[in-house]
């Protein structure tokens, strides 16, 4: 029990173990994408449209991944590299993983602190993070197909109804994120509204200059950067 976590947390075999898992996760995404690509062609989408979807996926993901990277860097002295690397690449979100780690360490009567807890507590944190993460995967394994089947059955007798449900769901999701990330406190509201206003300005500009298609393509990236600049300047 006296062994400190730092003595085991960066073992070479753990790097190898985590690398294998992350390669498998990436392979899953690549297989899904490859099959979706040929299905998209069958549906009549052009290669140019598909590539645009791909580029959008990459461009929108860069900035929101940076806070995850910050949490990863800050967790390295606390937990070593392999465990945070695994948890933040697979399933984990930045806030949740830090919380799960501290709950796991506290459960065995210790505190999450640099060089301040045992390898035993580190193992408890690893178990807690893994169980917490896997629970939602188990949920997805059992619940995704039944829910998709319900939507599919409705689509068979009225496609328009499913599209209307889709529009309603999208509006509901937008309303929920507007509340959670936009209107739940003053600081968030300032940043959210700055980004919203920038996006509206770009849409208006595009109406006046319809040949400038890049305005639509980069609208989200530009409005996000405007929001981040306002956060630095005003908060």
């Amino acid at each position: 029990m006296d062994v400190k976590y730092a003595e085991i947390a960066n073992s070479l075999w753990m790097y190898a173990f985590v690398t294998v898992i992350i390669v498998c996760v990436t392979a899953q995404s690549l297989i899904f994408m490859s099959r979706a690509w040929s299905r998209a062609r069958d549906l009549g989408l052009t290669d140019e449209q598909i590539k645009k979807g791909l580029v959008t996926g990459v461009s929108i993901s860069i900035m929101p991944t940076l806070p995850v990277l910050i949490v990863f860097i800050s967790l390295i002295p606390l937990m070593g590299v392999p465990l945070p690397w695994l948890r933040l690449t697979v399933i984990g979100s930045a806030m949740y993983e830090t919380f799960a780690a501290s709950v796991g360490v506290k459960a065995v009567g210790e505190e999450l602190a640099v060089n301040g807890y045992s390898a035993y507590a580190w193992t408890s944190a690893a178990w807690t993070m893994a169980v917490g993460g896997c629970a939602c995967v188990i949920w997805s394994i059992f619940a995704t197909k039944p829910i998709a089947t319900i939507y599919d059955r409705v689509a068979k007798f009225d496609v328009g109804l499913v599209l209307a449900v889709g529009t309603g769901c999208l509006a509901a999701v937008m309303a929920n994120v507007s509340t959670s990330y936009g209107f739940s406190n003053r600081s968030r509201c300032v940043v959210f509204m700055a980004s919203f206003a920038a996006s509206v300005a770009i849409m208006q500009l595009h109406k006046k200059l319809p040949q400038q298609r890049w305005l639509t393509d980069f609208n989200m990236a530009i409005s996000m950067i405007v929001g981040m600049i306002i956060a630095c300047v005003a908060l």
Partner: protein
Amino acid sequence: MPLQPREEFNRWIHSFGVTSNAVLCAMMIGFPLAVSAYYNLWPSFKTLLPSFATVVLILAPYWPAELISYMPVMGPGSLYMSYITGNVTNLRMPVTIGTINILGIKPGTDECHVMSLIACGASVITSTVILALGIFAAMVLAPVLQSPALKPAFDYVVPALFGGLVAQTILKSKKDFVVYIPALAVNLIFCYFTKINGAYYMLIGLVLAVAFSVAEYKKHKKQPE
């Protein structure tokens, strides 16, 4: 009878999604299992049970809310992928909506679901590469990313992401805006005047928005062409 391409694709999505998620889930549990076996450090699971319950129950209310509301937009394939890689609300869902906004694709269509798969896959690979590079660049990047001048930008990156995304989504048409407003009102009322968990009022907003959207659809369907 041979399956239609759509049914064949959907059958493959579920079969591959369930199998690959089960294998990856086992591998993830395999990590602490291997650590405990290798160092002979077996925690008392009786002691850990409350912490397991805490980390599961804190997110459990969101699972049905997310799966029901994201399904028509993201489709099952993206959801299988997103539950493995996490960050559904702050990464995978925005890239899906950003993509369909840019390409002018309607939510709930087959085109929407396949483009969501491609965009989410690209997003997963981007995040994975950034985090992998972070291991090597940690020493160099840490002072820049953690500098006090840039800290607010990263603290508020998600509100900054959603401001533009919400604008582009709800201002596409009058109908989108009309359906959004009552759902927003419900969310704000529950957020400010009750202590109910966000996952529950998300579902209430969902029911209201879907009811408005379906009523609008039925009204247009009844009107003679």
